[in-house]
């Protein structure tokens, strides 16, 4: 049994955000972090490992520096780490990204007992599309927004969140699950893990390694091939600061403004 986890390295959009002089985002100047939901996905896999002793494989597509993150994931308890990296993959939209990741997962191999885990959403692209698209490409059933997973043999019972409640779903392995933060509390690296992670090799799947996979259509990957294109990117204007109301009677001033505007 294997748990295959897709993990993305992302700029920390919650931390300090850097802009270039022309107002566009300066990604290079921003800290990178492991996508938060993906740590919940890894934790779900590690819990299965604790219970059933499965192999945990982490896969990340991105430029070479993502290797550092993969080592950290090994230190948290993953057994095998794969970096999917190649110039041909750069600029991929979610359709293209999921195609490449699906091919990488395929190369690892999804057996009848296996589960693929993704985060629900990456905090940079913010689309939440890659998980379901990988599932479609691999012909796996999917459950998104997982907040609870119980495994009994090859059968999983999953609590899937809705805005106004939840669904309880049952699915057999192999399947793909996208995880939200309510699912669990990710563990930290442990000391032994930190020592051992440097002995493990980080495998690299480049374009050559994946291009012959039947899932790869060479004309729908990368910036050129992606079905969606960024037509324009811009920053929203900051709204001008409004009026500050000062003094002990600030609340009274506000009440009279609201009354004048017939809002109260």
């Amino acid at each position: 049994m294997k748990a295959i986890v897709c993990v993305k390295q992302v700029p920390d959009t919650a931390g300090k955000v850097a802009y270039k002089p022309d107002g566009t985002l300066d990604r290079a100047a921003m800290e990178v972090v492991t996508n938060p939901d993906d740590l919940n996905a890894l934790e779900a896999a590690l819990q299965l490992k604790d219970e059933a002793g499965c192999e945990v494989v982490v896969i990340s597509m991105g430029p070479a520096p993502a290797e550092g993150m993969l080592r950290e994931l090994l230190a948290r308890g993953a057994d095998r780490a794969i970096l999917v990296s190649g110039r041909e993959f750069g600029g991929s939209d979610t359709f293209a990204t999921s195609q490449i990741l699906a091919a990488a997962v395929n190369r690892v191999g999804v057996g009848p007992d296996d589960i693929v885990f993704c985060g629900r959403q990456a905090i940079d692209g913010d689309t939440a599309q890659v998980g379901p698209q990988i599932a479609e490409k691999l012909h796996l059933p999917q459950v998104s927004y997982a907040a609870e997973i119980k495994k009994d043999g090859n059968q999983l019972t999953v609590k899937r969140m809705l805005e106004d409640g939840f669904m309880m779903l049952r699915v057999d392995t192999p399947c793909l699950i996208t995880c939200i933060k309510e699912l669990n509390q990710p563990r930290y690296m442990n000391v032994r893990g930190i020592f051992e992670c440097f002995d493990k090799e980080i495998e690299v799947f480049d374009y050559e390694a994946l291009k012959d996979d039947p899932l790869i259509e060479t004309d729908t990957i990368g910036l050129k091939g992606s079905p969606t294109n960024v037509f324009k990117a811009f920053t929203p204007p900051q709204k001008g600061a409004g009026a500050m109301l000062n003094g002990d009677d600030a609340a009274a001033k506000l009440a009279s403004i609201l009354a004048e505007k017939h809002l109260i």
Partner: protein
Amino acid sequence: MTDFSEYKGIWVFCEQRNGELMPTDFELVSEAARLAKEIGCKVTGVVLGNGMETAAKELGGYGADEVIVCDDPLLEVYTTDAYTKVLCDLVNEYKPEALLMGATNIGRDLGPRCAARLHTGLTADATHLDVDTKEYIEFLRSSSTLDVDTVKLDEDDRNLKMTRPAFGGHMMATIICPRFRPQMSTVRPGVMKKAEFDQAKADACQVIRPAFSISKEDIHVEVLSVEKAAKKMVDLIGANVVVSVGRGISKNVKEGIALAEKLADAMGGVVGASRAVVDAGWMSSDHQVGQTGKTVHPKIYVALGISGAIQHTAGMQDSELIIAVNKNESAPIFGVADYGIVGDLFKVVPDLLKAMEAERAVR
């Protein structure tokens, strides 16, 4: 260039839960009707469920020229497999040029699965749509920091321009899908304006009942139960006034929430929250406003003890009037507020309640 001439019309996938259409369906049909005018095409609502015809016709009143209704016991409750199969088969048969759906927890499950199967692109969580280039330029003029007069765009471009926030709201991107059809987008609930209901149009709306096939064998995920949240969900999106609390209530959480409730009552609104409050377990997640919560644009939004992180303001900055109370005069929330009061919310809110009562008494 591929020939797209056989792809015609805008489709809106209209989600139902428990046999009731979702509010966002009406917003989307209204928006699609606006776009259809720019294109000169029809708007089709697509409803999958069981016994949905009467509800579906209501979509006509908001701008759907016709509705496709597929009724089947296997479509009563959403499953990825059944909905993907039926919707994709319909799209392949009828070939719409655009397909929109609400970016709900279900739309964001169904949309990507369908886009992958239909071999086309999908824009996530759009907040603005245009076809006409001139309209798009006007949109950029009001909503971007770009120097619009230097932006050169092809006036005859008829691609659907789907604008969405990314990088946690720090950036906006307009996405196009020039090489494949249909052009697909999920659209953020609560953002598009619902049209006035028109009974005559609802009566004229044509119902189409196409043949479709779905069987138990197509469905690989079994629904054991669908549970409504125990408490009634707060209707943030439909509210005229939202009074939200942030971590600033921490010194007396109960009192802070009670004050917000009182203020909301006095203003005829509901109570919302920042994520910090939800994460702390002080309020349930249906109250959360922001990037990973709800997008609201009420007439009045009051932020009490909220710092104004971009992930929060992303969900409330388009409110008509924003009032912020924060004890820190340099809190970023004041940057989006129309009226700001620097002070302790535990003092300012009772003062405000009193002052409002006094105003009411004299008027």
